[in-house]
């Protein structure tokens, strides 16, 4: 049994993004600001699917979706249709979802397009507009709970579904794709990916020789990489034991971090798609697309190119910064206050990112303003703190949100500029290292050793410039005597 190479992995994603910046739901005038609200208070007869009510399309949602299609270079349909996707489930008030379809005469909002990740293009198959179902909650897990609670506040929230071709070749690439997509949506100002459940995805994965397995219920981007890694390991071990992978749908269990079989191909649902008779075909005029195009904001790719040109950043650094709108915005805010963009970029990509990664949090969860970083960088320039100290200051800033001058004072991070104290310490080091002191008189290199000892003794708190000065002064005095 040969080992499966990464090139033999094919992953396709179906990403559902809520249009979180809309004021109202997709087909009614209920407020879409449902998070943290009392269950079943953001509902009306229309999104509850009460008898006799009819959906009316939110025009702003259509505009937002058109913007996405333009950003992903998709072909926007001149005449798009809504289709009903029929299945029974308690989170759906009508027991069908108003969605779109690309078969059976259906025409979704847009077809084709791509997202560029580094040097690779991930092709988009289609983009469609649809309504979110409500939310179910259980007492503990589905299996153990004796009841199910339904909250319809989310029912009818506008979603765009973005389906990729199976061009993704690794779990990491899947994450990068999603990060890029999120950055695009955030740059467009239509979806805030940091809101809980605002971006969810299903993943289709096949290994060479195996059938396509769909993983559902992946609630965040972090989970995607995990779920896919688990699934690859699972499938590989089956293949190694000579078991063929059949087509099935699996459920990602976030708690246990495993996938569980939901249904096999034979049990696949028949959604009985057909055109939604209560909505008329939506005609999208060329002029409307042009008008929207004209007010499109700068997108991550353009921004990355601008960062390289304007701030002379390394391409890979510009790429990393623009992967998140918050990060890129933070960077640019800093550049307005501080003249060394590369320095800003290095700190953001180094210390900031690893902190975010370790804590598993988002840029917007930090209590930091550009001022924090810039002040700290100024302290380094002025020699108030060393680079090494700056790292500690930064950690403290990230943790507490305090301004660097406060931290420096509180933590006594300020470098010691007291000549008397430094002189005493130098004296002590020279005494403790008589041989090195002798060598140093004739050998410059030995000075470095003494310097190191000095820093060790003072926990790096003394100003290296001043220390060097005093060491040389004392050595020349010793040489004379």
């Amino acid at each position: 049994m040969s080992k499966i190479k990464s090139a033999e992995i094919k992953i396709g994603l179906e990403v559902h993004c809520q249009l979180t910046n809309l004021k109202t739901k997709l087909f009614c005038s209920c407020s879409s600001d449902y998070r943290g609200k009392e269950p079943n208070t953001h509902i009306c007869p229309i999104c509850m699917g009460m008898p006799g009510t009819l959906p009316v399309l939110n025009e702003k949602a259509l505009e937002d979706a058109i913007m996405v299609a333009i950003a992903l270079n998709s072909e926007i349909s001149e005449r798009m249709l809504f289709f009903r996707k029929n299945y029974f489930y308690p989170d759906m008030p009508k027991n069908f979802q108003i969605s779109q379809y690309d078969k059976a005469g259906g025409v979704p909002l847009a077809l084709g397009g791509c997202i560029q990740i580094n040097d690779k293009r991930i092709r988009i198959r289609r983009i469609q507009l649809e309504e979110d179902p409500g939310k179910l909650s259980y007492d503990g897990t589905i299996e153990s709970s004796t009841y199910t609670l339904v909250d319809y506040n989310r029912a009818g929230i506008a979603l765009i579904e973005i389906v990729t071709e199976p061009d993704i070749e690794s779990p990491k690439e899947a994450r990068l794709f999603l990060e890029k997509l999120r950055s695009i949506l955030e740059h467009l100002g239509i979806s805030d990916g940091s809101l809980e459940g605002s971006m969810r995805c299903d993943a289709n994965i096949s290994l060479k020789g195996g059938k396509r397995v769909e993983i559902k219920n992946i609630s965040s981007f972090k989970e995607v990489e995990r779920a896919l890694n688990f699934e690859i390991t699972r499938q590989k071990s089956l293949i190694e034991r000579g078991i063929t992978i059949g087509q099935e749908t699996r459920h990602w269990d976030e708690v246990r971090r495993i996938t569980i079989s939901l249904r096999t191909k034979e049990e696949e649902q028949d959604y009985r798609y057909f055109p939604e008779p209560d909505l008329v075909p939506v005609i999208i005029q060329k002029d409307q697309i042009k008008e929207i195009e004209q007010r499109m904001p700068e997108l991550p790719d353009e921004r990355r190119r601008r960062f390289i040109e304007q701030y002379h950043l390394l391409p890979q650094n510009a790429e990393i910064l623009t992967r998140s709108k918050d990060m890129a915005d933070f960077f640019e805010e800093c550049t307005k206050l501080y003249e060394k963009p590369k320095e800003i970029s290095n700190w953001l990509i180094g210390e900031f990112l690893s902190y975010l990664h370790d804590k598993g949090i988002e840029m917007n969860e930090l209590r930091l303003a550009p001022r924090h970083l810039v002040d700290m960088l100024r302290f380094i320039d002025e020699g108030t703190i060393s680079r090494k100290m700056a790292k500690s200051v930064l950690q403290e800033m990230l943790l507490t949100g305090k301004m660097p001058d406060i931290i420096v004072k509180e933590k006594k991070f300020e470098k010691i500029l007291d000549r008397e104290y430094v002189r005493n310490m130098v004296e002590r080091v020279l005494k403790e290292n008589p041989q090195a002191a002798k060598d140093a008189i004739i050998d410059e290199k030995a000075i470095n050793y003494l310097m190191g000892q000095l820093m060790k003794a003072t926990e790096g708190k003394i100003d290296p410039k001043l220390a060097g000065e005093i060491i040389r002064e004392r050595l020349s005095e010793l040489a004379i005597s």
Partner: protein
Amino acid sequence: MSRYAELPAYEIVERIKAHEIKAEDYIASLYERIKRIEKDVHAYITLTEDLALKKAREIDKKIEKGEKTGRLCGAGIAIKDNICMKGVRTTCASPMLEKFIPPYNATVVKRIEDEDGIILGKANMDEFAMGSSTEYSYFGTTHNPWDLKRVPGGSSGGSAAAIASSTASLALGSDTGGSIRCPASFCLVVGLKPTYGLVSRFGLIAYANSLEQIGPITKDVRDCALLLSCITSHDPLDSTSVDKPQEDYTKYLMDDINGIRIGVIKEFFGEGTQDSVAKGVWDAILKLEELGANYQEISLKNLHYALPSYYIIAMSEASSNLARYDGLRYGYRIPDKSYDWSTVYSKDRRFGFGFEVKRRIILGTFALSAGYYNEYYLKAQKIRTLIKRDFEMAFKRFDVLIGPTMPILPFKIGEKVQDPLEMYMCDVDTVPANLVGIPSISIPCGFSLGLPIGLQMMVPPFREGLLLRVAFSFQRNFPTLARLGNYE
């Protein structure tokens, strides 16, 4: 006061506005009549007497003060029970919605109230408007006022029977495949299905959304024009409602049809059409000729497929529309809750729906299923397009297309209820107008063996004015053929 009951609505409105009668007295007299007659006819599911009398007193006050009143001032109106009325139970004649009280008004209800019309109650119908006889009502059959042993037609049987028995001045029905025109024909009243999109469907509980329209059922053509004028309007709550300026259709009521070109649809006189019906309709056509119209026969080659196409589309849409009735948020819920949700759904739907409704849900689900979709639903839609084209071609040659509304005379209660196919066949002449989306009217055109015959006329989209003009001329010149129902 009871002598007013048989007057057409426009006369009642005039008299109330002229201080001749009080709205309250008139409405009270209608309820007295309802109480006498309902046990025989059973046109209503729910009466809204208190609300109606309160509204009548408000109108009387307005008139006393000399305030402006609406075009339906004081008229008592029956509303089919699939049209939502805020705070009043709206059942669709189904156990599923037996206790359902909508917190909103249908747009047509709002329009009627704005015009000072008074809603008397909710009229009986076939469950979820699925039927042609009103026998499939959970609340019991409505009887034809012309012969109580016979059906009033359906599904808006209650609305038509209320008009025929003068227990309402005006009525609203809904027509998915003939549900206004069929009972209008069987009860010898006027029923009009408007152009698709002319009347808002907001608040109409859907059976088959792409086919159905709300429309008037009235004693005569003038009332029909009056009520139609009041309920048509562009409605931002209904995406399929057409953005057209409102019209006063009574201005079309001229006694002049000279030179009107009438196409007699041959297929409407084919196999299954009773001779007495064919004869009654032909007599009417000859009468129209006397009035100056020209007629010619015409054959529409795809009409043959209209009925099966209609049923496939209607049932497919219904299977999806009716999925929402699971008992979770409203509607029938089994008392025992100790099941998982899918079992609860199954049981709610098993007991909450009647037999015919379940039959159509199952057939519609089948027609939309993978592997059958192309063979059934999509094919039916293609045929729909072909039939539309047939009609477009025909309307190049003719102003009005004509034929019987129903191929048969009103049948006996229980006669067809065991044979769904025979029941479906009753709709053969009415479904084409729904597939095509054009206006169609049924007006009384005579009797055979003491039973009413209806004449059906169709015109191109949005030509309701012309349709009403031809109907008006016929009614005015041959009033004995189009005489009002006289139950007492």
